[in-house]
């Protein structure tokens, strides 16, 4: 037991014991619990929970209501799934929705998988001791505070048909005109978006993995080596299982972010297929307030998909990966 004081600090201790729900002498400690002892935790949590409940859950709940057709401002109070049906099955919107969903899944899963693999590889690269390691690690992290809007513009400067890469190719005699360069940004396969996300997220996941690797030291690997494990076996059976929790938690954040992000698709996407978030915002900006119902329906669908995919992923990884 950490707390030794006998008297004087009894009230604070009792409060703490009360919350710890320690069985011994429960009745006696309950008896001297003051108002503050009893309500201290709810009171401490209240400001943060107010933000979460009113702004976050409130916003979500009201949005869900609007998606069900509830808009008293324009005199609509009946509840229906009409907008969801219209988005998914009507001739007008079905293609926009399903193709948008396919593109969104492709871009977010693709970005996450590529980022996670490159993050692991680059973290292993930077983990070894070498001259200039500090500088390299610093430069590796330099893009972390760069917002996604800027990342998307940077990819545009690099990969557009008159961008730096195309110019480099032209200098080498590969292309004569910008139009000879392949369309890599504002393309219908989402390559530009994936490039942009990968550029941003590799150091992001990489820094998490690197921190785990550095705290591990080399003892485990030396042990495995002394037992005759080769380089590949050491990676597969020693390093990978140890960094997996960090790698997975970083990947979850990346997946959830890319699935619901707006800036990168808005700058680097095309009209068709269009990422779901961009479609939702366009519906929402429509001067006809009825279109908000469809916009909200799409953003509710996005939230539900992200939420359940992340939950499933966490459940799976908790079952298969050792947690620290």
């Amino acid at each position, binding site marked *: 037991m950490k707390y030794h004081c006998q008297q004087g600090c009894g009230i604070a201790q009792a409060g703490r014991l009360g919350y*710890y*729900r320690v069985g011994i002498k429960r009745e006696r400690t309950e008896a001297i619990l003051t108002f503050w002892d009893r309500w*201290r*935790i709810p009171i*401490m*949590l209240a*400001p*943060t*929970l107010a*933000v979460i409940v009113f*702004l*976050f859950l*409130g*916003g*979500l*709940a*009201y949005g869900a209501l*609007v998606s069900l057709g509830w808009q008293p401002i324009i005199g609509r109070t009946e509840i229906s799934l009409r907008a969801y049906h219209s988005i998914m099955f009507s001739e007008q919107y079905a293609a926009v929705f399903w193709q948008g969903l396919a593109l969104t899944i492709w871009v977010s899963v693709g970005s996450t998988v590529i980022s996670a693999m490159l993050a692991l590889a*680059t973290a292993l*690269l930077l983990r*070894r001791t*070498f001259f200039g390691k500090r500088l*390299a690690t610093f430069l590796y992290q*330099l893009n*972390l*505070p*760069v*917002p*996604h*809007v*800027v990342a998307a513009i*940077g990819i545009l*400067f*690099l990969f557009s048909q008159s961008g*730096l890469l195309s*110019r480099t190719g032209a*200098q080498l005699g590969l*292309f004569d*005109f910008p139009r000879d360069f392949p369309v890599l940004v504002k393309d219908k396969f989402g390559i530009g978006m994936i490039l942009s996300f990968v*550029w941003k*997220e590799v150091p992001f996941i990489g*820094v*998490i993995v690197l*921190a785990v690797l550095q705290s591990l030291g080399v003892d485990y690997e030396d042990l495995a080596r002394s037992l005759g494990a080769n380089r590949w076996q050491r990676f597969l059976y020693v390093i990978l299982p140890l960094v997996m929790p960090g790698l997975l*938690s*970083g990947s979850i*954040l*990346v997946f959830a972010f890319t699935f*619901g992000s707006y*800036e990168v698709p*808005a700058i680097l996407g095309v009209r068709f297929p269009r990422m779901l978030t961009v479609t*939702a*915002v366009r519906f*929402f900006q429509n001067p006809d307030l009825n279109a*908000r119902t469809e916009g*909200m329906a799409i*953003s509710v669908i*996005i*939230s539900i998909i992200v939420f359940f995919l*992340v939950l499933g992923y966490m459940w799976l990884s908790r079952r298969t990966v050792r947690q620290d």
Partner: protein
Amino acid sequence: MATHTASHDHSARQRLLRALHYAAVVLLIFLLLTPLIAFLFNAFSFRWFYPQLFPTELSLRAWQSIVAANSKVPEALWNSTILAVAVTFSSVVIGLPAARALGLYKFRGKRVIEFLIISPTIVPGIAVAMGLNINFIRWGLAGNLLGVGLVHLVPVMPYVVLTLAGVFANYDPDFEQQARSLGAGTLRTFWHVTLPAIFPGIVVASLFAYLISWSQYILTFLIGAGQVITMPVLLFSTASGSNNPLIAAMSLVFVAPSILILVLTARFLSGKSSAIGGFGQL
């Protein structure tokens, strides 16, 4: 492990591996830095014709238009700064007690509370902002800094609370008891005992609150309703045009404070901190 008895072949292989490793590191850093270099090229370029690799004519035009009298950049910088500072300060004040409760105590329903607090990191911001938009218009919170600042709290709170809760998990509240028994009041105890102990955590929490608010586009756009011009909002609308030097110069003005703040606070940061996730939200 290379020993002095290693064969010639062995050390040659080691040298080759080391050279390959260096080449890979240089390539990695080069790939990560080129987009940033592209901003420098564009920001000072003038009539940069294809297929010139480097701009042959340099110019400060973009920078002049940023400081020109009709430029919106100063207003946007001011709004972004006010927002980021206010959001940082209020998120720490709001989150500190909750972090203390989560870091120091066990209580019933704790896991549910923790899940609630981190859930904004998973659910996309557009769903929240769209739902709030109509009510914020009704309550007079749309189109002004107060409303936008309130919405910025949603993505910021999880990281502030998680970071500070991590600090409180390794904090011994007995020191406060000792200060009180020596006659210090609540405020003095907080100022002289609690605050110094949790200071590194507050720095990291503030760093992320600032970065997330500073970089926020879609929430500002949906709640600001075109009235609140921040740096990301201005940059986004400029980026839909084709004035590359201006887009690049504006981007540099936008990211410079973030990079500077990161460099200044880097020593408080570790990749193992739960706050590091905040970088994924920018």
